[in-house]
């Protein structure tokens, strides 16, 4: 099985390096094909590993070599394929295989074609390290690695100012969280003496709650950055500047879920500190609602999906925070499928619309883009959680968990959010595919994507539909590692009321969306309509003014402070004081050199003056010596020692 592990791990690396060889050359179709092939190889290996684990095989654990060893610290390159990581591997390799193949078409006309595959495969490799590592340090490698690839890919079109800005924003924001993560690591190391999951988790129960709480908080701060939780969420929406396959892979399916993965991975820790868990869950619920609310009014197709991702991440954190790790993981998996599908569909639309992102400028695309229409609709249905699609199983489970754990506020927030989710999803679908063909106003002739791209998307479509049916298989597998809490509402009646109630609520939301955006005529908003001048609309469209606040109260002051530090403090105080000391010597020399007037008479006077000065000193001293006793008396009278 080690072979498959290595294959799964390293074939993306090979793919990346292979593509990197051709970065300086014009587009080569085969780099895309080879890269996709290698990723698919990784997928196959992961599948084999999955079947191995499913069939009750042992956890595959290898230690490649020592990375760092000094003092008591010992960090190997260790990789483990267990129930959790294999799930993640499956998600990662599957989605990335799809995205790779898809990208061959999507990036067809881009001159950075080869480079794109290099970056994309590098991302897969980093992600594989992240999920497969058997220790926190390895996790951190992957953590930073995906950050790097995310930076590269967001800024892939580096000639665009907004893209590079977004890339840097994403990287720096992630760095802020990474600091928390790093501190978490230090805490783990100094308290348990190791960074290996197994030993560290084994040592944790004997630690005091305070330390564990801090550990949990700092690790979660790390997770917050990567999973774009409030207040570190702004980068995710901006990250949509990257190519759409990137958004699908990184900013929907895989990287952003790393935070959830971390919490799941550290479940022995979070089990010990339920308060932190509750905080995580509350934050998750808040983010779920908060993001969904922003998605309601947004006019950027990709941003809407990004907010939806954010919202779903909130769901996952709710589950993870409440201790339902397997539920979180399950939703993670299901979400990966339908969200990636949604993004890829959006990519098709963008292609068709020549990179137009405003859904208000589309409409009626279901005719020219039938396949895409179907896929996106189904994905939205899955997202909305309609039975029997994947979202239903995973998302409803989270609602159940919250009610079973008696967190009714969370439950009601989540329930409300589920309605919002359905609304904005179908608002999007309706705006794009239904109604009038507004795109004609802009003189665009949309066309369907390449066939093979659609084919490539089909596995996701299938999974988005049927993933829910694997729930029990999955449950049995994963609970070998995670706490096996089955969440059942106590009374059957209650269960049905809840389920059906939710379904109805969601369907009503969908219907409302259709009514508003598909049935009634839609105009491109131009800032004049009544709704657009409402306060709440303004707040939402401006993302609660958070980016503005960051820009005005963090970025700008930082820049100004930097300039002040440089020009005022460094140059005018620190440096000037050093130069000042030198200048004092120099100017003293310059001012006193007149003493050497060259006049002999003056020189003689100086000599006599020297003698007189010495004599005066001598007399003072002589008197002091002679009358030392009296002087002491006087001084002591004055209070001097």
């Amino acid at each position, binding site marked *: 099985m080690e072979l498959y592990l290595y294959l799964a791990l390293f074939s993306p690396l090979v793919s990346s390096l292979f593509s990197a060889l051709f970065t300086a050359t014009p587009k080569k179709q085969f780099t895309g094909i080879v890269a996709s092939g290698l990723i698919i190889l990784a997928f196959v290996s992961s599948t084999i590993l999955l079947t191995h684990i499913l069939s009750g095989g042992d956890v595959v654990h290898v230690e490649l070599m020592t990375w760092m060893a*000094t003092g008591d610290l010992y960090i190997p390159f260790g990789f483990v394929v267990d129930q959790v990581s294999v799930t993640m591997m499956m998600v990662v390799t599957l989605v990335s295989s799809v995205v790779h193949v898809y990208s061959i078409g999507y990036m067809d006309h881009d001159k950075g074609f080869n480079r794109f595959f290099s970056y994309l495969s590098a991302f897969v490799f980093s992600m594989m390290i992240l999920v497969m590592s058997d220790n926190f340090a390895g996790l951190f490698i992957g953590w930073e690695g995906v950050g790097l690839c995310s930076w590269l890919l967001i800024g892939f079109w580096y000639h665009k100012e907004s893209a590079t800005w977004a890339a840097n924003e994403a*990287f720096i924001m992630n760095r802020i969280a990474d600091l928390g993560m*790093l501190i978490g690591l*230090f805490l783990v190391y100094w308290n348990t003496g190791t960074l290996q999951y197994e030993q560290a988790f084994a040592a944790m129960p004997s630690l005091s709650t305070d330390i564990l709480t801090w550990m949990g908080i700092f690790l979660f701060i790390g997770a917050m950055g990567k999973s774009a939780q409030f207040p570190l969420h702004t980068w995710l929406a901006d990250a949509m500047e990257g190519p759409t396959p990137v958004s699908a892979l990184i900013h929907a399916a895989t990287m952003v879920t790393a935070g959830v993965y971390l919490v799941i991975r550290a479940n022995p820790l979070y089990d010990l500190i339920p308060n932190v868990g509750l905080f995580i869950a509350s934050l998750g619920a808040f983010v779920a609602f908060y993001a969904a609310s922003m998605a309601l009014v947004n006019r950027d197709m990709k941003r809407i999906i990004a907010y939806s991702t954010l919202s779903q991440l909130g769901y996952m954190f709710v589950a993870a925070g409440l201790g339902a790790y397997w539920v979180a993981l399950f939703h993670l998996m299901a979400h990966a499928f339908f969200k990636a599908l949604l993004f890829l569909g959006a990519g098709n639309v963008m292609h068709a619309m020549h990179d137009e992102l405003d859904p208000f400028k589309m409409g009626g695309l279901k005719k020219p883009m039938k396949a895409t229409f179907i896929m996106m609709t189904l994905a939205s249905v899955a997202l909305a959680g309609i039975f029997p699609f994947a979202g239903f199983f995973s998302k409803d489970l989270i609602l159940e968990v919250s009610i079973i754990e008696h967190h009714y506020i969370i439950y009601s927030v989540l329930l409300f959010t589920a309605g919002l989710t359905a609304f904005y999803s179908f608002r999007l679908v309706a705006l794009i595919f239904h109604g009038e063909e507004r795109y004609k106003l802009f003189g665009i002739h949309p066309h369907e994507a390449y066939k093979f791209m659609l084919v490539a998307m089909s596995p996701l479509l299938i999974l988005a539909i049927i993933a829910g049916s694997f729930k029990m298989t999955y449950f049995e597998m994963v609970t070998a590692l995670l706490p096996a809490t089955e969440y059942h509402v106590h009374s059957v009646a209650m269960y049905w009321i809840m389920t059906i109630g939710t379904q109805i609520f969601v369907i009503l939301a969908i219907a409302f969306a259709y009514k508003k955006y598909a049935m009634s005529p839609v105009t491109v908003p131009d800032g004049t309509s009544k709704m657009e001048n409402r306060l709440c609309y303004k707040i939402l469209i401006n993302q609660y003014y958070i980016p503005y606040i960051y820009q005005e109260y963090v970025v700008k002051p930082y820049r100004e402070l930097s300039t002040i530090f440089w020009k005022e403090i460094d140059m005018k105080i620190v440096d000037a004081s050093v130069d000042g000391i030198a200048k004092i010597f120099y100017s003293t020399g310059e001012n006193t050199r007149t003493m050497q007037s060259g006049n002999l008479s003056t020189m003689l006077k100086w000599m006599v003056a020297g003698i007189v000065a010495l004599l005066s000193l001598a007399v003072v001293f002589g008197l002091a010596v002679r009358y030392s006793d009296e002087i002491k008396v006087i001084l002591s009278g004055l209070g001097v020692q």
Partner: protein
Amino acid sequence: MLDHILSIIIFFPAVAGILGFLVQKDSVRAYGIAVAGIEFALSLWLWFSFDSSVSGMQFMEQLPLVPAFGINYILGVDGISVFIIILASFFTMIGISSLGETKDIKNMIVTLLFLQMTMAGVFAALDAILFYVFWELSLVPMLYIIGAWGGPLRVYASVKFFLYTFTGSLVMLVGMLFMAYFYYQATGVWSFAILEWYRLILPESFQLWLFAAFFLGFAIKVPMFPFHTWLPYAHGQAPTIGSVILAAILLKMGTYAFIRFSLPLFPDASVFYMFPIAVLAIIMIIYTAMVAYAQKDVKQVVAYSSVSHMGVIILGTFALNVEGISGSIFLMIAHGVVSGALFLLVGVIYDRRHTKLMSEFGGLAHVMPRYATIFGLMMMASVGLPLTINFVGEFLSLLGFYQQSHILTLLAGMAIIVGAIYMLAAYKKMFFGEVTNEANRNLPDVNKRELFALIPLAIITVWLGIYPKPLLEPINNSVKSVVQLMHDKAITDEAKSRIPSLVKGIEITKTSTPEAH
């Protein structure tokens, strides 16, 4: 020959430098590369014959110079110093081979060879005076390099560099003389041998003063805030090769000296001053990073980033445990490689455009993709991305210091944020966007000569990031003995508890070591 390999490594370039005067002007570059290559081969040989499982000094050489005053020619390397020596010879080679069109190239190469002598000497010397000799002597070639080949403010910059460091080290010299005097009092003979000094246990009050004296010398060299202002000038004005060697090797002298002198000689003072120094280090990290962000000149960005990174090294050093000190030593090497490479990269663009202002550039990634790639790699290494060389050092340094103070480590950890900010901003300004300046439209990409210098650095950056063990293991062994020595020598309870003992349960009796008073 192996018995005298250190002497050979030190004096071979100097002798070759003198002979270099006789080489014809057009051929002198080849001569320089050849000499530096041999020197590098010698240092590699040193590495291969180095027994990494031994914690003590190896290849010791001893020759009385002025026995009446206790000055001896003592050389030796341990895991702490050996790699910096190798790095020095490596950078001399890289530097000479990357030299482009330079006026008075013969003088430059001879100067570089002399500089190499002093650098090897500093790290191999085990006698304080010998150390001081090389330490001061290293200023002279650098003075000349900056002053003769530098930018418009070169004279100011070079003299400032020289005088500033010289002043600090003179105070250090007084400290050294004090140490020798204490040794004389305790044993009746003069000695400047560092290993002999290690046996002294000084009372805390003396330690504090002596530590301060040594600190001034080292801190200016490092350079620590607020003694850092010579560095931007020196880097800003120096030619590429000068900046490379200054950043890669010369700055390391200060931090190396902290580990070689301050920690083992004054364990109690080290503990006493740990927090003030850590605060300074944190100011260095954050403040200079912010200053770097405000810069308009890309070389100044790299220069200030050096200061910022040196802050992390200082912090690791004053973690006073094996993890931190090993990390800081590793980071010295890492920072040497990375900042050296960054300065080389800045030199590449400066050679082409004769400006270093970032506003002059923009969109270079279109024009010079290979350049952008290597720059990007080095920038990421500088930012401390895992699996690059810098991360190992930074991680261990911060990890080590976390044991001493949580809050301060948290603040120091800001390094990874602020570092990313100025680096990414600079990268964005230079490489991203459209090509706006017509002068940049047709810039040639990095050429073979430059690649020859840059590729090895890139390889090292990644290789040691993934597999730091060849360095980390010997460093670890030597650091362990230093930490143990410090623990044994510590006299205050505070110090005893702050510095971990590695030998559990065995307490070395104090009577075996002479006590000065």
